[in-house]
């Protein structure tokens, strides 16, 4: 998927040139006003960038040099907005059928599977006004999927929901990630959602893409950490190895093992974890006399200034070449003599299970 757009409005410029994977969830992350939504609207054909190019799996939807611009209703894409955008004059079923009919899916291919995937079968006869915020967004996603799109665009679909509703809908989004074989573009300004759902990450700032790459690698680039502020950290893909008798679970990944509590996934299942830089401290040697359970041997690869004064961000490489970030004080860095190439022990104070 290739997307290049340039727009110059008074006080705002969008200038991006992206190559995104054809499969999986690509997150567009950035502060509000950074141009994420404008970029998405350009891709949807709702905004006509005078200078633009968009190629989805070999289909050119826009090419300003050849004067190609497919209007929004001719682009096979699914779009879910931040707030519930169900048609209030139609029932849930009517909403779903609205898109199906027009996208040539009148016979309802995938209807049952989509209802089950998003858990909305019981809602079919209801009116949108009778649904909760989370239910409305699930119906909106189903409505988009039933048009059999080649690209799914989600514009902060959780931003208008409270924490409880978010927790309710996130498992469905994860299921979606496993099931879909089309690219999904997910706009968010929540590092949690990105870490949990994305495979690929693009950082947008002031209308420009300042970084774009695989999630784990991009998150681990210390020079990008100001974009995440306090949420700088890495994600690890682990496998649940065993539940031990003291109610801790052992997670394994190629770079080591982690012990975590408070989850019940069956051994063998995959689990994504996030480790924040502020939860990692460094030691020069392995301690036996510490309460910290999770220690990982690592090598320092880079040190940069953190956004808080007196702190630095240390990029580490684990045994499997996977990345880890640690945020320590400048004083500790000096005392321990931390510099690229040094072997250290990373002590992980807490692991967030995603």
């Amino acid at each position: 998927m290739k997307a290049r757009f340039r727009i110059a409005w008074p006080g705002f410029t969008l200038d991006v040139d992206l190559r995104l994977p054809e499969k999986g969830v690509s997150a567009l992350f950035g502060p509000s006003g950074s141009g994420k939504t404008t970029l998405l609207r350009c891709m949807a054909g709702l905004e006509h960038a005078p200078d633009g190019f968009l190629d989805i799996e070999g289909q050119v939807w826009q090419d300003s040099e050849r004067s190609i611009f497919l209007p929004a209703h001719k682009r096979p894409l699914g779009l879910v907005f931040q707030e519930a955008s169900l048609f209030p004059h139609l029932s849930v079923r009517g909403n779903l059928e609205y898109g199906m009919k027009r996208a040539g899916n009148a016979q309802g291919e995938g209807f049952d599977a989509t209802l089950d995937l998003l858990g909305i079968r019981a809602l079919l006869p209801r009116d949108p006004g009778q649904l909760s915020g989370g239910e409305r967004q699930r119906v909106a996603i189903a409505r988009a999927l039933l048009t059999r799109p080649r690209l799914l665009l989600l514009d902060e679909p959780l931003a208008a929901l409270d924490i409880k509703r978010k927790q309710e809908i996130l498992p469905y989004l994860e299921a979606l990630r496993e099931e879909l074989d089309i690219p999904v573009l997910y706009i968010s300004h929540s590092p949690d959602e990105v870490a949990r759902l994305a495979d690929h990450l693009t950082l947008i700032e002031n209308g420009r893409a300042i970084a774009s790459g695989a999630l784990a690698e991009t998150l681990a680039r210390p020079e990008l950490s100001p974009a995440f502020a306090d949420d700088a950290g890495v994600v690890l893909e682990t496998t649940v190895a065993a539940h031990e008798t003291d109610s801790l679970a052992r997670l394994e990944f190629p770079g080591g093992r982690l012990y975590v509590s408070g989850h019940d996934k069956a051994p063998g299942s995959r689990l994504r974890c996030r480790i924040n830089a502020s939860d990692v401290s460094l030691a020069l040697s392995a301690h036996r006399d510490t309460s910290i359970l999770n220690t990982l041997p690592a090598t320092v690869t880079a040190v940069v200034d953190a956004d808080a004064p007196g702190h630095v961000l240390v990029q580490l490489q684990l045994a499997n070449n996977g990345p880890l970030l640690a945020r320590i004080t400048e004083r500790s860095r000096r005392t321990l003599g931390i510099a690229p190439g040094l072997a250290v022990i990373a002590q992980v104070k807490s692991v967030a299970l995603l």
Partner: protein
Amino acid sequence: MDASSLAAIWLTCKLAALVTVLLLLIGTPIAWWLANTRSRLKGVAGAVVSLPLVLPPTVLGFYLLLTFGPQGFIGQSMDAMGLQRLPFTFTGLVVASILYSLPFVVQPIQNAFEAIGKRPMEVAASLRAAPWDAFFSVAVPLARPGFVTAAILGFAHTVGEFGVVLMMGGNIPGKTQVLSVKIYDYVENGDYTQAHWLAGGMVFFSFIVLLLLYGSRKRSSWSQ
């Protein structure tokens, strides 16, 4: 009530019904344009459409009479095409009423379209609805309260007009003599009984119309 009163009532209903239908057809695209345009002409167009709200009806009627009369630009053009001139005909009444009642139909529909915003149309486009399809399947149903208000106001206002009708249509029984003019006729001739029947009926009719209007508004604001 005598036969000429009944004829006036029938003529008034026929006029108001026809004008309402035509106004919805003409007013809807104007309202859509006003609600969505970013053109600099929007202010001018909005002012022109709203002019009948503030002009004395006789002023409008006077200029219509001149424009459509034998010396007027349109009157002469119609002569050249071999068409009957409009003043003092039923068609003339229809044209005059449409111009006079236009703002009462355009404004509620325009407000309804503006209240919907662009989002539902964008959602419809993302679900493959072409613009016309989206207009009829999304914008019109969502703007329904606006259309109801517009139709009621357009009808009632046409029934209630006097000055424009008198200037453009005159007072020809069975042809251009509508209710309001007929009442004036009775009063001028001292026939207060007949005038009462018609005037009292108008008060009752207007009350029912407003009751319907505010009743429907209240309901629609609850449902949203």
